[in-house]
């Protein structure tokens, strides 16, 4: 029998290695039409006449839809603000914003016709940087949002002015984090079909139930007439949390009374999802002895033309910017700045990596200025279990000192460095979910096998395995006798969402409860098919700045050792150590896979990734040739991942959520190591060879 913690085989694994796994694009519907989007060659354009005659003349083309074919006023949607039109109306607001959609009997015909749709447009001034968006007289991205600041988020504790008097040293710097994209290897794919008096939508999405609600509102249908079928996505990383083109496809399917499918290209996916670019100003106050006194953070997050979930990213991500330390006073101000760019959305770390990069780098700077070891500085100020490090939130819920010391030990922090190498260290923290609601159902069959039903999505994190392990353990049956059903709102009970590393904790507890109910019914002598149900809630708190306290914290300590090629600026990471506090690993192999994957993803935005824009607000490096992500040749020579398991989490058997933590401190740790190796301090990401080489040249000149 597989035990909790064991490397149980990957749920859904077989289909993933023999080609049988069906992702959305692998599914075809009878009588389907292929959809291709029509876009403009600029970010912001006033839309004039749309002439579809040449497009409609192509054999097989059934329809060309634009704003005038949709209901008036234009239906709008969004998970946070209902600001995004189903299709561009009046003007486009970012490069890739579709003005029309062609439906045809074949993809060839749809693609040819999309090129033939003639759109008159007048290019308008676009704002694609924080400075341009916030400049006096800048064009407004959305009507009614003055200065393009959608919202300003403030959180503070302690008396900052009083605390500042106790600081013997104030370190102040500005850090920049670039615009990057999720780059799931599966490009987003959508299908919609009329279904009786409603609609069924197939999509590669993390939150099927949130999408169901959004579609029901947008289409003015009852929830019961909107079915979302969501096969396991081929990677998501936050980019597949919320609706993109599902509303458009649903309207088209209902109007045409035929199934429609839209599979984005990778280039179109770059124009659909990205992470917020961020400028962060940090003021850190401390004593000469290394006691942190205050942290003052001010951040501009450049979100896109429509909010998507980005304003929540800004609010929640910035909230914990001061880090896992005890301060007299902390203050964070963060603005969601609209721009004529791709709507930014959730991306692993959810707004934290940007502020972590800034604040942890500033701590490295502070340690250098007072001549204190950077690990020592952190240990001196780190919250201990039970410390209310943010006074109005969940107190420190883990042994973060142990995790920090473990990472230092695994990095050989106190041992001499090989010649020419530098070491860097940083900590990461992220608030877990602040609200949550998950239901599960477990059916025990006559032969003693069981099916687990849940609305969580297996986006690659291995949720199928974890839930099967929990049910098998609770029911006392072998893992091979448990199957897990997900991804269909017509079948599985409600789950709020698959995000914030919540699923092991929230849905895990629901599966645990449902399994235990089955066991109780068995004990009570019930026979036949036995069905157990369970739920798990994270209650909101309307008085909390985030609407709820953290269900748990993700904590990670990262250390790297690297060398820099002085001739080319190229960085070689010799050793990367990542240690996460996971409470209890349900599956140690999967924890390792997630942590190492997160670390490598963090190396992507640290070393190589960023969008490049031209003057018309177009992305110049669309696609895999000009936008590089880590390959098998870009890895640390040695990756050491370890976990702290003290059974102190709120999930099954003491588990906490994990999978984002190991990404958070990567940039700050790498930059600190570059500084240690070369003496150069870089405050802009990525640390590309060009940027490092330029900094080395400047160092040598001065």
């Amino acid at each position, binding site marked *: 029998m597989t035990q909790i913690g064991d490397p149980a085989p*990957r749920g859904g694994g077989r289909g*993933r290695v023999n080609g049988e796994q069906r*992702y959305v694009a692998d599914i075809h519907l009878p009588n389907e039409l292929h959809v291709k989007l029509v876009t403009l060659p600029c970010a912001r354009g006033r839309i004039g006449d749309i002439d579809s005659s040449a497009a409609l003349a192509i054999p097989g083309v059934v329809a060309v839809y634009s704003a005038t074919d949709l209901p008036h006023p234009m239906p709008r949607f969004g998970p946070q603000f209902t600001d995004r039109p189903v299709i561009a109306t009046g003007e486009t607001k970012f490069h890739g914003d579709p003005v029309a959609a062609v439906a045809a009997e074949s993809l060839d015909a749809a693609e040819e016709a999309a090129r033939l749709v003639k759109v008159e447009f007048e290019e308008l001034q676009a704002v694609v940087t924080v400075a341009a968006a916030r400049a006096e007289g800048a064009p407004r991205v959305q009507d009614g949002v003055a200065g393009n600041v959608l919202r300003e988020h403030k959180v503070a504790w302690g008396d900052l002015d009083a605390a500042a008097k106790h600081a013997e040293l104030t370190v102040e710097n500005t850090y920049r984090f670039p615009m990057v994209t999720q780059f799931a290897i599966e*490009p987003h794919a959508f299908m919609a079909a009329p279904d009786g008096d409603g609609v069924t939508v197939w999509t590669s999405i993390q939150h099927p139930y949130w999408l169901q609600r959004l579609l029901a509102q947008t289409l003015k249908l009852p929830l019961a007439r909107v079915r979302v079928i969501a096969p396991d996505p081929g*990677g998501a990383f936050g980019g597949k949390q919320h609706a993109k083109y599902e509303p458009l496809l649903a309207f088209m399917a209902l109007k045409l009374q035929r199934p429609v499918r839209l599979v984005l290209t990778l280039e179109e996916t770059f124009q659909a999802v990205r992470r917020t670019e961020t400028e962060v100003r940090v003021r850190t106050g401390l004593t000469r002895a290394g006691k942190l006194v205050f942290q003052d953070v001010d951040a501009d997050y450049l979100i896109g033309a429509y909010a998507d979930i980005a304003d929540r990213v800004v609010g929640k991500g910035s909230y914990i910017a001061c880090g896992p330390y005890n301060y007299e006073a902390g203050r964070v101000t963060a603005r969601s700045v609209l721009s004529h760019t791709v709507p930014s959305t959730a991306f692993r770390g959810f707004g934290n990596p940007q502020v972590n990069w800034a604040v942890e780098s500033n701590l490295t700077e502070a340690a250098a200025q007072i001549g204190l070891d950077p690990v020592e500085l952190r240990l001196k100020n780190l919250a201990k279990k039970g410390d209310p490090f943010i006074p109005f939130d969940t107190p420190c819920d883990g042994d973060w000192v142990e995790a920090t010391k473990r990472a230092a030990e695994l990095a050989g922090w106190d041992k001499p460095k090989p010649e020419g190498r530098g070491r860097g260290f940083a900590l990461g923290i992220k608030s877990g979910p602040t609200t949550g609601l998950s239901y599960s159902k477990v059916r025990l069959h006559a032969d003693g096998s069981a099916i687990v039903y849940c609305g969580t999505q297996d986006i690659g994190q291995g949720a199928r395995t974890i839930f099967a392990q929990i049910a098998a353990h609770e029911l006392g049956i072998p893992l091979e006798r448990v199957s897990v059903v997900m991804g269909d709102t017509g079948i599985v009970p409600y789950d709020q969402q698959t995000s914030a590393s919540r699923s092991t904790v929230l849905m895990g507890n629901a599966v645990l409860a449902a399994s235990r109910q089955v066991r109780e019914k068995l004990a009570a002598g019930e026979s036949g098919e036995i069905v157990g149900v369970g739920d798990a809630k994270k209650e909101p708190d309307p008085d909390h700045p985030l609407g709820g306290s953290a269900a748990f914290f993700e904590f990670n300590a990262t250390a790297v050792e690297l060398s820099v090629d002085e001739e080319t600026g190229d960085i070689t990471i010799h050793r990367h150590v990542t240690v996460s506090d996971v409470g209890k690993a349900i599956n140690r192999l999967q924890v390792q*896979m997630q942590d*190492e994957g997160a670390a490598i993803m963090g190396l992507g935005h640290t070393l190589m990734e960023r969008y490049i824009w031209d003057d018309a607000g177009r992305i110049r490096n669309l696609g*895999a*040739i000009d936008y590089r992500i880590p*390959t098998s040749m870009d890895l640390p020579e040695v990756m050491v991942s370890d976990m702290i398991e003290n059974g102190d989490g709120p999930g099954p058997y003491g588990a906490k959520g994990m999978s984002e933590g190991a990404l958070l401190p990567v940039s700050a740790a790498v930059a600190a190591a570059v500084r240690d190796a070369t003496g150069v301090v870089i405050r802009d990401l990525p640390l590309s060879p060009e940027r490092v080489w330029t900094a080395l040249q400047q160092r040598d000149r001065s």
Partner: protein
Amino acid sequence: MTEITLRVNDEMRSYSVEPHHTLLESLRDDLALTGTKECCLVGECGACTVRLNGVIVDSCLVLAVEADGGEVTTVEGLAWGDQLSALQEAFLTRGAVQCGFCIPGQLMAADDLLRRVSHPAHDEIEEGLAGNLCRCGCYYQIFDAVESVAVGSGEQP
């Protein structure tokens, strides 16, 4: 439309293709072999890797008509019926599979590497898989899987 004949996963297939369609499109749309994945379409990501006439190719960069008369192996052809290959098994037991979308391409590239070099050195594995992106970042586990098969069997899979 052009008539072509392919031997796909040991099965002869004769059918018509659009002359501008890639081997990737043809495998997925004409033959319903959807295990081969579509991502970048410019030969950078490796998700569409298949073996064509004994060498691996990005099937998004090969026209179906160019493959006429050729022999193609896709991920669907790696297992013997229900029996997964040693490499497929190793990918599962070594934790090389997360979302799975890149895995068909990774398997084809790894299979090709092991056909060429029965016991590849670590840097040969890194290089052999350099054309296959994994955004889940399972590279170390993929290396581990390849190494375990090379060490375990002592011969080609």
